[in-house]
């Protein structure tokens, strides 16, 4: 999981996942034997830069989650985390040099070396 600079314009009232990332999420869910699933995308305190991304495949949203659907995958974002993620694109990078899931977060003013945390 890492952070990259946003390469394209994304409406700031949503977050997007690319088709490749959505496909990877579906693959993980199938591997886990889940019929009903969604991707929880959140932020928690911690990490070198203060805020750390959270990615988790879950079986449904929580009460306060914002629900967004892209490429057949439901994305659940806790309301308090959304302010840090608005406008983000979630991609997946594979291959020998791949880094796994990548966040292009326009709110991230600074990221740590390993890319798992950021500050705004």
């Amino acid at each position, binding site marked *: 999981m890492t952070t990259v600079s946003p390469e394209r314009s994304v409406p700031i009232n949503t977050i997007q996942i690319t088709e490749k990332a959505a496909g990877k999420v579906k693959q993980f869910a199938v591997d886990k034997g889940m019929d009903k699933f969604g991707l929880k995308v*959140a932020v*928690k*305190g*911690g990490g*070198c*830069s*203060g805020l*750390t991304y959270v990615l988790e495949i879950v079986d449904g949203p929580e009460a306060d989650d914002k629900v967004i659907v892209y490429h057949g995958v439901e994305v659940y974002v806790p309301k308090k*985390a959304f302010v840090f993620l608005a406008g983000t694109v979630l991609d997946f990078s594979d291959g020998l040099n791949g880094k796994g899931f990548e966040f292009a977060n326009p709110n991230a003013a600074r990221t740590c070396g390993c890319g*798992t945390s950021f500050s705004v």
Partner: protein
Amino acid sequence: MQASSLIHADSLQLDALENGCGLVRWDRATIVKHSGPDALDLLHRLTTNELLAIGEGRAQRTVLTTDRGRVVDVFLVAHVSENQLLLISDSEDSERTISAIDYYTIIEDAELADLSGSHSRFSLIGPKASTVVKSALGVDVGPGQLAVVESAGASITVISDPSRGVDWIDIVHEYDAGDAGDSIEALFESSGIVAVSPATFDLYRIGRGIPAPDREYGEHANPIESGLLDLIEFDKGCYVGQEVIARLDAYDKVKRNLKVLESDEPLEAGAALHLPGGSKPAGTITSTSPLTTEDGVFLSLGLVRKAFLGSGTVLESDRITLRVRQGVFSLSTGEM
């Protein structure tokens, strides 16, 4: 300055701090209740020290830094009971600490409550502190341990904190309950302790090189140069500011050290330090005391550039000559 105008520190109070037990009252201190199943894990992810290992009944002091490695606050995390923590800081600005932790509380199940206005804190300092606590409250509290006892009609939290390099026990209790506060202090006073004035405590603190908020540490300094190295666990993994602090340490990039300064005249906090003759800047004075030791020496603390540190280093500030002391010594006996 003429010797006759020197104000010596109270020798009885200094002796209690050095050889017995002194009671230091905190008129204002940060006392915060941090509760919830995620509270300890959150603080572990945010601050410099290893906190997941402290079980119930134990305490550990830690540093909250910015993402650029500057100090926000230093506080004691007391694991009082399951999902209940007490955070205690020497800072008078509880709002700064609370808002910093609250900013990072996003999906965590944790709540903060400021008890600074409703609770009182005093500290028992000196080699006989734990003996005094046992005599007054009937509890043994070893280094890094805490106990909650009911006495004088109040619930009293007793926490031993060895992180300043001296015997130090914090006592926290709720204000109200009529005369309960006075009764609690009276419990200890009958055990032979000596009440220490803020000025005498400050001289003791300076002589021991114990850093204080908004003087030695704050957003003007990183925790390594501020004398807080022992509160940093370098093997714990990520926390806010970890990348910067690890780099400072690994590449020896810390440019200043906290040092005790001796002079024959009083210095001014915030004043610049220079090499003799005012040739090169050598640091900043962070704390001073109007009191002197028994032999008429004024003590100060300063962040001194490492390049100019050496045994017997002599510096100047506003044309006053001062010496950089190596190590700490007893203020009451004058012995190293």
